[in-house]
């Protein structure tokens, strides 16, 4: 059951209002496109973080976004399938592939799992690049049509040809993803996840099926990566093997590391701030990776717990001070 205090509830209402009014605030279609991308990256960062809550760090997350994007694009472009059915199939397929891969690889721990997922992400990418029909080989799949319109006869018809409608569509799925993973993280299942992260042998000794929970987190995270991949193809209208490389996967990990991983707001904050930063660094494109690298190394080494940890510490400090001041006043 979702229980919210009035403070929290009003926070979410304001946030949602801001997100809904984005297309009004940003009339420029280029800016709107950038914001839509940011949302997709937020979903990828959150799903990457969700897998990390069990202590397994992945560098192959882009591979699952590629699976979702490629399957949906191929089903639409080559077999003329309805976009919504293709979204469903692509998501389920990403989950099934994640189940098989997770079941095999999640026994591996720590740095070895990182290396294994890195290899896996690259194998997925090369497989799509070498598979001409229906995935288009190295050229990929181009010129995809916008998603099918949703019609309820006699009531309304929503078309997805414009950037604004695509923004709302992306927003809807990203919010669904964040809410689902946030609620799972706060549920008893989330407690088990963090128990496994902190001491997996202890968790196993008290009778927890740690492989089962790790696979559950991995499959959930990868399914939402698949959704993000599909949203990517809807917005860009094409997908290539170069769309989701190991560098993309590294970015998702970086978002989590810079933002912090104590709760869902860490990866959200990390993805938003780094994406906005990279937008501001656009005029000095050649130098961008250097500035970026220094910021992320600095953030990881100097602020333990990431930005969200810093914010939380600040919040606690202000509360303490206000408590002390008001205590004195009384």
């Amino acid at each position, binding site marked *: 059951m979702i229980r919210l205090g009035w403070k929290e509830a009003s926070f979410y209402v304001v946030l949602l209002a801001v997100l809904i009014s984005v297309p009004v605030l940003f009339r420029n279609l280029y800016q709107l496109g950038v914001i839509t991308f940011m949302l997709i990256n937020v979903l990828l960062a959150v799903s990457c973080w969700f897998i990390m809550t069990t202590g397994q*760090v992945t*560098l192959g997350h882009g591979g699952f976004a590629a699976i979702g994007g490629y399957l949906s694009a191929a089903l639409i472009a080559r077999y003329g399938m309805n976009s919504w059915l293709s979204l469903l199939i692509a998501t389920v397929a990403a989950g099934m592939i994640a189940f098989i891969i997770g079941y*095999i*690889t999640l*026994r*591996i721990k*720590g*740095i*070895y799992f*990182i*290396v*294994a997922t*890195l*290899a*896996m992400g*690259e*194998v997925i990418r*090369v*497989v799509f690049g*070498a598979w001409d029909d229906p995935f288009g080989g190295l050229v990929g799949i181009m010129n995809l049509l916008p998603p099918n319109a949703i019609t309820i006869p006699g009531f309304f018809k929503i078309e997805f040809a414009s950037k604004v409608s695509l923004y709302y569509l992306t927003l809807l799925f990203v919010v669904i993803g964040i809410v689902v993973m946030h609620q799972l993280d706060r549920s008893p299942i989330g407690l088990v996840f963090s128990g496994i992260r902190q001491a997996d042998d202890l968790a196993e000794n008290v009778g927890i099926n740690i492989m089962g929970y790790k696979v559950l987190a991995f499959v959930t995270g990868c399914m939402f990566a698949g959704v993000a991949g599909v949203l990517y193809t809807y917005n860009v209208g094409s997908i290539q093997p170069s769309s989701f490389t190991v560098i993309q996967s*590294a970015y998702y*990990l*970086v978002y989590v*590391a810079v933002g912090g991983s104590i709760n869902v707001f860490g990866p959200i904050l990390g993805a938003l701030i780094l994406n906005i930063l990279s937008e501001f660094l656009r005029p000095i494109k*050649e*130098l*961008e*990776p*250097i500035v*970026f*690298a*220094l910021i*992320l*190394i600095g953030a*990881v*080494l100097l602020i333990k717990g990431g930005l969200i940890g810093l914010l939380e510490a600040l919040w606690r400090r202000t509360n303490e001070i206000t408590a002390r001041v008001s205590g004195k006043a009384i």
Partner: protein
Amino acid sequence: MTFEILLQPLVYGLQTGLTYVLLALGLTVIFSMMNVLNLAHGEFYMLGAFTVFYMNGLLKVNYFLALAMSVVVVAVIGIFFERIFFRPARGEVVPTVIVGIGLMWLLQTAAQLLFGAQPRGMKEVFQGSVSFLNINISDSRIAAGIISILLVAGVYLFIYKTKQGKAMQAVAQDREAAMSLGIDVGKIGTLGFALGCGLAGAAGGLMAPIFFIEPTMGTTTLIKSLCIIILGGVGSIPGAALGGIILGMIESYGQTFLGYSATTFPFLIILFILVFKRTGLMGRAA
């Protein structure tokens, strides 16, 4: 099928394999001593190649001197980044990986700005070539092969026969115990990092006259080094040697007979070994 079609890849594979051994040795020394998987290892290789390119190709310094300089230059750069970036990460998994990724971007971009992004070739240092049994091998490759063997032997002697080398082994086996025996763990760690980076630089310097040089050449190199140390067994020096030669052979024959799809081999090897035999061919059980 003629005989030389089977033999030519064998010779090429052996030579590239030997250079891979240097790379993998560097990576595995750093990992086993500092618990740092240096994801920027390929960039140190790239820097070694560029050092030789500028020293020998442009400033006409003697090739062997240029090679020695590439080792020193890369080792010094390595020590610098170990001090400011890797040491504060204290061997924790996620910070170390993030620092490695950041350093990778940093060095790659810096190289692009300083040296230019286009691939460049160096004149072959040794002009001739040797042919026997209908197969051809250039003198550059022979020289690279011989120098690699000498360097590997040197590293082996250093680690197993000298006091510093034994201290390095002790740190790799048990950091706290080494510390309590009076070994300066910080200093030995720096030495290990310098050795690891210097080996990557040497590998780059040896490959510079044979392959194209470009700022992004480190990425595939990193994957190959990872593949070798996992195949051979992480932390094992004979394992790195065996793994390097095996990967050199697999690649050489794969490119000859399979073409593009051979590029997936390192990844498949990594996955296969990690899933079925975590300790690799010669690694100790952790």
